[in-house]
């Protein structure tokens, strides 16, 4: 099972698809239509990399999203990811 995020906002899909190549710990895909805002889905997988690797990749990627002003929703908790500690909690679940 993956741990899933949805990112919503004014997104640059071209830059995000490029960044997806460096996010080895996750599958990423666009979410358009279906009556909602532009978004991307992120499915984080434990089997692709180490905890440290995933942490570094996610922090770098989330910094890209922050520049765009995007909102990140953790579908497991139903809450937004706003702080680095949220990433740590997420990764603790993924790699437990």
């Amino acid at each position, binding site marked *: 099972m993956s741990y899933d995020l949805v990112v919503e906002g*004014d997104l640059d*899909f071209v830059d995000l698809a490029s960044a997806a*190549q460096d996010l080895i710990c996750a599958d990423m895909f666009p979410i358009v239509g279906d009556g909602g805002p532009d978004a991307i889905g992120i499915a984080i997988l434990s089997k692709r990399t180490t905890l440290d690797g995933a942490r570094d990749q996610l922090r770098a990627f989330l910094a890209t999203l922050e520049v*765009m002003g995007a909102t990140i*929703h953790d579908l497991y908790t*139903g809450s937004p990811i706003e702080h680095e500690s949220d990433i740590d909690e997420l990764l603790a679940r993924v790699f437990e």
Partner: protein
Amino acid sequence: MSIVDRALALVGADPIPFALVERSTGGPQYASLMATNSVRASIMGRRFVAAHAADATGYALAVDAFVRIEGERRDAIIVEHAMAGAPTAEVVACPYQRVDGALSFGDPLPYRIRPSALVPLDPNTLDWGVITPDFYAAGDNRAIHVVNHALEVDDTRTVRFLRARARVFDRHLPASPPPTQECTIDIRGQHVPASRQVDLAARLGDVMAKVTFLRDEEDN
């Protein structure tokens, strides 16, 4: 004079991001892009360009940024530009110096190529990397998604997530035998009424051949 030159001619002493759309009829369309950073300004600019694409002959987006040239940090105006009919835009970095309060530009340097903002972009056509099914039965080409989402308050994002993921898988799974997808939704520990489960399954019905709910024993 190129559209890059025409865009640079519009850059003031205190550069403000802007979008310029040149048209086949009427004068050019211009918009200042007020945003907190150059990335957001560029996103706003591409939306402006797309909204005026019908009679556009070309466009330029100009944002102020820093670039590194031979290890040295330089001020530069980044100009994204394309002419109508071209599938891609060229992005160039135009380093500048302040001379007597005005900007003096060096030669534009190639920076990157990206899809033209005049062409509608389907993000599904971009390369998003690999897909990883939770379970995959190769014999009947069946992918099974397993999710554990907080569904007591809202399931809209879950539905959009699963529908989009299924569409991505449809493009990646082998063509033969015809691929099918199923979904198992773990709602143990949550109160999700039966009527909402039926509704959720219905909203996934056109992309998932089967939707199964993993419930607490007392709910079965």
